[in-house]
C-alpha cells in the first residue's frame, strides 16, 4: 500500500503541466565576506550579545580556564558535563574541576543511555562544549553532533558554555556548512545544529522568556 501511494503521488505530479523555472537574480557579496579578523570578531560579538549571549576572548588555555573558573564561581556550578571534541579535550577539564571543586563528567562516564539522560537532564548545572564553527553573520555557533558531541549536553543544562578557536570564525553560514554538505570529503553529520543565543519564547502575551526549554544562558569563549 505504501509503495503504491508513492507511485500514485509521484505519477500525478508528473502528469501535471510543466512550468517554467524562473531565472535567479544575482545577489551582491555579503558584507561579512569583506571583513578582516577583527571585523568578524566584532560582528560575532555584537550579534550574539544582542541575543543576550555573552562573548569572551581568551588568548590561550590558561585564560580559557580562568574564564571557566570565573563562570563556575559566578553561577555556583558544581556539576558540569563536557563534550569530548578536540578543543574541550585539550583543556583537561577533569583536572581543572578537581582544583575548583567542580565535578566534570562526559557521556562516556555513564553505563547506559538512561543514566546519561537522567544526569544531563537533572544533575548537570552546565554543558561545556566545543563548536565546529562560529559564524559572524548572526553570532551563530555551528555544532556537528556525534560520538564526541552529544546532542543533549548543549541543550538540556540551563547554562551552555562553548569554547571555539578563533580560526573557526567564518563570515557566513555557507562557509561553515559547505564543509559538511559540500559533497567532497567529510560524510555529513546525522545531526547538526545552528545555535544563536539561549532558548527563548514570547508565546505568552508576547513577553520574552529566555530558557524556555533549553539553556537560559549561552557563553562563548573565542580562543586564540
Amino acid at each position, binding site marked *: 500500500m505504501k509503495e503504491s501511494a508513492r507511485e500514485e503521488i509521484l505519477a500525478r505530479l508528473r502528469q501535471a503541466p510543466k512550468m517554467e523555472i524562473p531565472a535567479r*537574480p544575482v545577489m551582491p557579496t555579503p558584507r561579512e565576506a569583506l571583513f578582516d579578523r577583527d571585523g568578524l570578531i566584532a560582528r560575532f560579538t555584537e550579534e550574539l550579545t544582542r541575543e543576550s549571549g555573552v562573548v569572551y576572548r581568551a588568548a590561550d588555555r590558561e585564560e580559557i580556564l580562568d574564564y571557566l573558573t570565573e563562570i563556575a564561581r559566578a553561577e555556583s556550578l558544581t556539576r558540569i558535563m563536557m563534550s569530548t571534541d578536540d578543543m574541550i579535550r585539550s583543556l583537561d577539564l577533569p583536572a581543572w574541576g578537581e582544583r575548583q571543586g567542580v565535578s566534570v563528567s562526559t557521556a562516556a562516564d555513564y553505563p547506559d543511555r538512561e543514566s546519561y539522560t537522567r544526569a544531563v537532564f537533572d544533575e548537570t548545572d552546565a554543558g561545556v562544549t566545543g563548536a565546529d564553527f562560529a559564524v559572524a553573520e548572526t553570532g551563530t555557533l555551528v555544532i556537528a553532533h556525534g560520538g564526541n558531541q552529544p546532542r543533549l549536553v548543549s541543550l538540556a543544562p540551563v547554562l551552555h558554555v562553548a569554547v571555539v578557536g578563533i580560526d573557526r570564525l567564518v563570515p557566513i553560514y555557507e562557509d561553515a556548512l559547505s564543509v559538511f554538505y559540500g559533497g567532497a570529503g567529510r560524510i555529513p553529520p546525522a545531526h547538526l545544529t545552528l545555535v544563536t543565543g539561549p532558548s527563548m519564547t514570547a508565546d*505568552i502575551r508576547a513577553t520574552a522568556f529566555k530558557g524556555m526549554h533549553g539553556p537560559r544562558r549561552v557563553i562563548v569563549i573565542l580562543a586564540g
Partner: protein
Amino acid sequence: MKIDTGNFVRNAKLEMQNQYARTFLSLLPPYIAARRVKVMGSFPDPAAAQELSRAIRAEAVARMPDLLEEFEKNAIAAGARVLWARNAAEANEMILSIARERNVTMVTKGKSMISEETGLNDALAREGIEPFETDLGEFIAQQLGRPPFHIVGPAINVPVEEVCDLFMKKAGMQEETTDPVELGYAARLFLRDKFRRARLGITGVNMAVADTGAIINVENEGNIRFNKSSPRTQVSVMSPEKVVPTTTDALHLLRVLCRNCTGQSISAYVSIDRGPREPAEIDGPEELFIIIVDNGRSRLYHDPKLREALRCIRCGACLNLCPVYAKIGGYPYGWAYSGPMGQVLNPALLGLEETGDLFKACTLCGTCREVCPAGIDHPAIFLHYRALEVKRKRRSSGRWEAILFGVWGTAAAHSAVWRFLYRLARPVLAVFGKKGKIEAMPGPFAGWFGARDLPVPARRTFRDQWRESLSKQGGAS
C-alpha cells in the same frame, strides 16, 4: 483538527466583540511587521534577497516531483525511512502503527502545521496515545482545544489569567501566577519531564534538502531539538512542497524565513538531520521516519494557478499586514492556517464548498502579495477561487447577478453610459439616505448593503459644479 471554515462570518463577528483580542491585534502584528522591515535591511540588497527567495520557491515547486525523488534517495542512503501518505488518514495510521509497534503510550511533538492539517493529536488520543505539544503556544492552544490564533504565536491572544487556570489544572503548576515568565517556567518543568520520558518524538519539517536528503527545522524554544535528541524514535512529517534543491538554497530561505516570520535575522535554533543518529552517538533517534503527506496537493498541482499556493513557506508575514486579519484574528479562518495564507491554503486543501467566505473576506489590497517572500499572488488566487465558484454554482439568482454586473461593467467602461445611469439613480438613492448615509436598501440590493454603507449622492455632482465654475470664470474674463 475540527474544520470550522463554514462559520467564518459568525466567528468573525464574535471575535470582533473580543476587546482583549482587538487590543492585542492592534499592537502585535504591526510590531512584528516593523521588525521585519528593519531586519530585512540587513541584506545588502533586500529587494534582490526577496526576488531570490521567490525564484527558489518557484523552482522548488516547478521541479517538485524530481526533487522529491532525489530527496528520498539521499535520505534513504543516510538511513532514514521515507513513507508516503495519500491523505490524513493514511499518515495518521502510519504514525499510529509506528507507536503501537514500540508500545508507546505518550509522544512529544514539535510544532508541525501538516499534523494540524491531519488532526494527528486527535487520532493519537483516540487510540490511547497521549500527545503533548511542546512549543509553548501550541501546548496552550492544544490544552484549550483551540485552533492557532497566529502561526507564530498560536495562543498569544490568550489572557494570562486563563493560562494560569489552565496550568493549575493541566500542567501541574503549584502556585497561581499571572507573570508570563513564571508561567513559561511552569511549562518548562512540566514538558521537561515529558522529554525525558518520551520514547517517540514527532516533528514537522521546514525544509527538505534534495541533494543531501537532510531535513531542517527552525525554532526558538529548543523543543524541536529535544524531540530530535531524547526519544529513541523520531518521526518527521512533511508536505511534498517542503523540498528545496540544495543546502545553499535552504540557507537563503532560512535567512528570509526568519526575517519574515518573527523579524529575527536567525532563530535561536536551526537543526539539520540526515538520517538517524550515528552508531557512536549516545543520544538522538535510533530510527528516523520521514512521512511525506500529499493530502490533496498532487491534485491541485494540476491547476497552474493553485500550484502557486505550494510556494508558501509558512512565515506569516502576510498575516501581520492584512487589514482583515488585523480586525478578526486567526480563529474565524477555521482551520490550520489563518490570514491571507489561510485564505489561499484552506480552500486549496479543503475545497471551495465550505470555504467560500475565506476567499471573499478580502479587499484585494495586495499587501500580502507585496510582502510575500515566496512570490504568491494571493489576490489573483482569490479571484481564481471566486471564478471557479461562480462556474461551479450557477445558482438561480446567478442569471440576474450576471445581467446586473453586465450592465455595471458596460457603464463603468463607458463614461457617457455611466453619467446617464448615475443621473437616473441619484434621486432614487437619495430616498434611502439617512444622515448622509445609505445603510440599507430593499430587494436585490439588501445583501450588498448588509455589510456596507454608501454616502448619499450630493445634490449636484462634482462634474456639474466643475462645469459651472468653468463657465463662470469664462464669463468673467
